[in-house]
């Protein structure tokens, strides 16, 4: 009998495996999950040599080598729906910060320049292929991943949270870190994370990318008024999501 369960594949290119682990760390639901969907591929747990056709593909990681680009394009070709899983796939995350760093900062480490392995400009996956949905975060909230898998398999429309982190942070009654003179990117960052970092009194670094309606000039003015330099503000904003925030490069060149 042919299985009618939806097929799901998880794939990874250059990254830290944190987003894949976040999915596995749904310890209570993961066994149940295998009954609802057929997991065709999961890096380091259940992998097959060829990239097969799937209903939904989740891609973790950024493109940092020609091989990454090849794998990504093959996965796109074989998947009805492609989901960018996590910050590396979405914004290129911290490894994508290299795009803004002077080359002499890491030239010492470019040993492969002399050799066979090629490194290319780090970039998010939508720079190379069409992405149907993005689960942001470094890593994403683990519940968010499992909810997306279920909803996609039920062919439900997925929606991204669009309000800034401050909305959830206030709801959680946290002290405002901006008032404590810290560079907290909550006001300009997409929420949906339940303000997990600011709940621990650690400032938001913007890993879920900028909100569509952020007021960047006012935010920069606020931080400058607190004594932060343009450089400190710029470097903090571009660390996780510079490649998805072209405005910041206009305002703070």
């Amino acid at each position, binding site marked *: 009998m042919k299985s009618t369960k939806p097929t799901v594949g998880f794939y990874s290119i250059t990254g830290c495996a944190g987003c894949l682990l976040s999915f596995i760390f749904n310890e209570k639901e993961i066994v149940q999950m295998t009954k609802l969907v057929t997991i065709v591929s999961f890096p380091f747990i*259940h992998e097959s040599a060829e990239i097969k056709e799937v209903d939904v593909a989740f891609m973790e990681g950024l493109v*940092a080598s020609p091989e990454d680009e090849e794998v990504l394009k093959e996965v796109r070709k074989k998947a009805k729906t492609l989901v960018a899983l996590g910050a590396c796939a979405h914004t290129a995350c911290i*490894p994508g910060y290299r795009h803004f760093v002077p080359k002499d900062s890491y030239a010492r480490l470019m040993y492969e320049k002399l*050799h066979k392995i090629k490194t290319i400009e780090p970039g998010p996956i939508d720079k190379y292929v069409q992405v149907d949905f993005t689960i942001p975060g470094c890593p994403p909230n683990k519940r968010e991943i499992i909810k997306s898998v279920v909803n996609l398999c039920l062919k439900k429309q997925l929606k991204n949270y669009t309000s800034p982190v401050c909305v959830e942070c206030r709801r959680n009654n946290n002290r405002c870190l901006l008032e404590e003179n810290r560079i907290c990117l909550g006001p300009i960052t997409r929420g949906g994370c339940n303000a997990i970092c600011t709940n621990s009194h650690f400032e938001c670094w913007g890993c879920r990318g900028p909100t569509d309606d952020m007021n960047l000039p006012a935010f920069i003015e606020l931080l400058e008024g607190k004594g932060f330099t343009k450089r400190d503000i710029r470097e903090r904003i571009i660390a996780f999501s510079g490649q998805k925030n072209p405005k910041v490069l206009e305002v703070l060149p």
Partner: protein
Amino acid sequence: MTEITLSHITKIEGHAALHVKIDKGKLKTCRLTAVEGSRYFEGLVKGRNYHEAPEMTSRICGICSCAHTIAAQKAVERALDVHVTDQTKRLRKILTLGERIRSHATHLHFLALPDYLGKASGLDLLPKYQKEIERALRLMHFGNKVVHVIGGREIHPVAAQVGGFTNIPDPQKVAELLEEAKKLIPDTIKAAQLFLKLKTPNIQQGFDWFSLTNPEEYAVLEGDLKSSKKTYTQEHYLDYIEEYHTRDSTANFVVKDGKSFMVGALARFNNNRHQLMPKALALMKHSPLKDISTNPFHQNIAQAIETVHSMEDIVELLKEPFKEEKRILPTQHSGHGIAAIEVPRGILWHEYRIQKGKIVYCNIITPTAQNLLLMNENLKGYIPTVLDLPKEEIILGIEKLIRAYDPCFSCSAHFLKVDWEEG
């Protein structure tokens, strides 16, 4: 000449490649390399503020994010002469052991165990081994909870910072963790007994090992370095540790005193096994690890017993309540600091030079980079002994050996691809 290419040996973390060439029944070439896209973390932190190093370098590895966070903090603190409180040390140790429990439980049950039970993957262990898988998931769940309660997040924790913690853990949640840890000790023992029962290949290969050692405790975050022959201090690590690069690998190779060496759970056992907590100690004494071992397959047994130890240790560490404390901020803003800590796969090194609060130099050496050369040598020693077996069995043996090291190629630089050439 027959040429056979096998791609995708899986169940290791990250992407690597193995090239094997056999000519007239003799092993000619055997090279294990990492082929992951480069990320240059050490270059990315250059010019950043010292307190940003932990948050950024934590992104090197999702499975060891606590490890990178803590190693960065400790190295920065050494550079800036910051001395943290005993409570901060205790919280960091709990965080590290929580991460170790989830990492070992994941590796042992999902990556290593399927080989021994003749299954293709952890998922194929269901439904027959449902009990074992559920036990592993309980342990992973607990490790995650520890990291969440102490570190504020399950992956890439944020509560641990340079100079201390942003806030102390919720006492109610700490009490729950303590109760759960006590209840889970029998689970860790059953898991260890399972791995003690598995038939491991009996190979002894002469090699040196390297781990932290501390007269006070089974070393985790504090101590000198110890090999089979002598002890070393952390400060002068470049006197005995050397990194080098090859043409085809994005991970660097590391040698100690010019030679290959092993880091990880087995190395820690060889040096410190008599300091294990009581239940882990009793298991060790009735295991092949009661004596020094140079059988790389024993790494799995060491990890399984270490999980028992970590759980017992966490019970002790959680007993005393935590009090509100201020983080200790540096009074000097320039300096040089090195930190070596024991993380799931072995020693992790972080080094920073800081000038006027900005990082001017960073060097990171991961456990897998340190094990890479020895893994290559072990394979060269192992393959000739099994050449008369069917090819599938040889490949399974190679995979088991590599997985026993629990390599993490995300850390060191992604898949294991076997290029097989036969003449």
